[in-house]
């Protein structure tokens, strides 16, 4: 097609200018992508670290549990519910918890803590707790011991094989009390949690709280963080269906609530949203600079070619075809820069994906202080690549409108004489 050929050749007419324009787009796209995927990567890690250690991306609770955290707002095991969780492909793993607040005491010191009753195997699949043991060992099936987070152990001055006393409120007003042997010390990647967490085997926790076979929550991990809303809705629908058909297996009085990680950890979500907004602003500034560059190119191009445009219109070229060629040229140029930018970002991002940056020294300390994991691994979500491409292309398209208007207003003789 002659018009495409014309656009292509015109693009290379002022080789230097085209190269400058293309390379500035290339760097902008590359930079914007890397900036974005690094940031999202940091948050992916931070969010998954946090939710895997605490509440999952989604959590099933007894209605009303979240507000008062009462051990009375618990639910019994229900095979139909478990069946639903086990058959949903988007749910990678899930773990049951029986959580309660308690006082941990050694005689000298006392501290309020969160005691979590866990299913050792399921817990490990979600939070990889056994890998975080810094001394001692992980809990066995039917273990009578307890795991303490590092900061808590330090505060209470406890080591492996020492004994800790827990006091709390049990099911339906019972007093909860127990004496436990410290089996292991856990070092968590999130400092805040390090100060106040302890884990009992599920049976141990039930005995402590006198609940019998009850849970405070099931925490669900999903394959893709973005699917949280959709999975939640499906589960709610299925649970409603389960009730309708359950008959014998339906436990009266047990109604479920499903919460998302954003609801349970609003600060984390807000932090993420804020960083995301910051990132959008940064990219916006970057693209503004690029927009000026592209606009400059358009102005120069229009100026240089006025005479030629005049001739073309004089000999009978329709203005919309002429404008089409010019816009095609600009889009071709922007597309080249954008595709090169995406192509350039790809290996870079993949490299860091497989060779995450491990911050050392002060950087690591600072990162931990702000609850960041000191490992930076970019997100490899294609979406972030494509969005940047769209951004540049839309800038180019919008700016080409200027060329369009200019050509539409052009008068052949004036243009020829310019």
């Amino acid at each position, binding site marked *: 097609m*002659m018009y495409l050929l*014309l656009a292509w050749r015109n693009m290379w*007419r002022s080789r230097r200018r085209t190269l400058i324009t293309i390379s500035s787009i290339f760097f902008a796209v590359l930079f914007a992508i890397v900036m974005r995927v690094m940031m999202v990567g940091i948050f992916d890690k931070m969010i998954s670290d946090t939710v895997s250690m605490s509440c999952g991306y989604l959590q099933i609770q007894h209605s009303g549990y979240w507000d008062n955290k009462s051990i009375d707002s618990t639910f019994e095991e229900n095979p139909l519910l478990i069946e639903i969780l086990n058959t949903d492909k988007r749910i990678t793993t899930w773990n049951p918890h029986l959580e309660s607040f308690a006082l941990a005491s050694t005689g000298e010191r006392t501290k309020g803590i969160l005691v979590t009753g866990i299913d050792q195997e399921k817990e490990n699949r979600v939070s990889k707790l056994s890998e975080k043991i810094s001394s001692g060992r992980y809990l066995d099936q039917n273990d009578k011991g307890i795991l303490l987070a590092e900061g808590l152990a330090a505060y209470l001055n406890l080591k492996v094989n020492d004994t800790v006393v827990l006091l709390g409120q049990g099911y339906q007003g019972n007093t909860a009390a127990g004496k436990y042997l410290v089996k292991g010390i856990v070092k968590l990647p999130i400092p805040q949690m390090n100060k106040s967490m302890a884990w009992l085997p599920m049976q141990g926790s039930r005995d402590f709280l006198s609940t019998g076979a009850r849970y405070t929550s099931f925490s669900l991990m999903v394959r893709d963080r973005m699917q949280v809303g959709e999975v939640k809705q499906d589960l709610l629908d299925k649970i409603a269906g389960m009730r309708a058909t359950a008959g014998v297996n339906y436990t009266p009085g047990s109604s479920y609530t499903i919460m998302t990680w954003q609801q349970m950890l609003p600060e984390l979500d807000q932090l993420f949203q804020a960083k995301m907004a910051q990132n959008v602003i940064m990219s916006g500034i970057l693209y503004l600079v690029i927009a000026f560059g592209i606009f400059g190119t358009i102005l120069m191009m229009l100026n240089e070619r006025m*005479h030629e445009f005049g*001739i073309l219109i*004089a000999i*009978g*070229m*329709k203005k919309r075809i002429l404008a089409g060629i010019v816009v095609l040229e600009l889009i071709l140029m922007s597309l080249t820069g954008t595709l090169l930018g995406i192509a350039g970002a790809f290996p870079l991002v993949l490299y860091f994906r497989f060779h995450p940056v491990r911050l050392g020294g002060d950087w690591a300390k600072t990162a931990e202080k702000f609850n960041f994991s000191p490992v930076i691994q970019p997100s490899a979500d294609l979406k972030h690549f494509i969005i940047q491409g769209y951004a540049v292309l839309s800038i180019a398209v919008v700016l080409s409108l200027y060329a369009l208007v200019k050509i539409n207003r052009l008068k052949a003789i004036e243009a*020829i004489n310019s």
Partner: protein
Amino acid sequence: MNTIIELHNLSKVYNPKTIPVYAVNGVDLQIEEGEFTALVGPSGSGKTTLLNLIGGLDYPSGGEVKIEGVDITKMNENKLIDFRLKNIGFVFQAYNLIPVLTARENVEFVMLMQKKPKIERDKLVADLLTEVGLSDKRDSRPSELSGGQQQRVAVARALASKPRFILADEPTANLDSKSATNLLEIMAKLNKEDHMTFLFSTHDQRVIDKARRIVTLVDGKVISDTKNQPH
């Protein structure tokens, strides 16, 4: 003979509200098919303005421009563009060609706009470039051609659309005298052999001598219209 161009009381006033300039002032003129006419006159006499009005590149302040009986001053801009493509060939003073296209592509381009089939395009392009003596330069870009060669390609391009007539505003102004004479000889030959109607403006006496009709403008008015024996 057919009358191709008919001007009635044609005028063009620039800056009518401030200091009016009567660039074309009540011109009546008829151009017959097959004529080879030079438009002459001192600088500022209105030659370019008149040619632009005839070519539908500008709208007059008054009067009519009829091309084969059709008054083009009533057409809107888009219609005029289409009308020019189908009926009028243009040769401008200089830089007529699209710099990024070769001589062949420049000539072919108009036919592409007219949506002519490839076979027809290829044949006509080859014929036209041969006629203007540039078949060996077909793949050269304008920057690789001399000014005279560029003007010859422009003539070939003007012919490629099979127009009813060709307008040329000082086509030799930027050429040395040898190239100018050469261009005029090619135009004269196309006029004679293919009966193509030419209307061109010029200051150059040797170019004027090649014309068969000479129309002289002064202050936007036709002051003489004579037949000439080319030599």
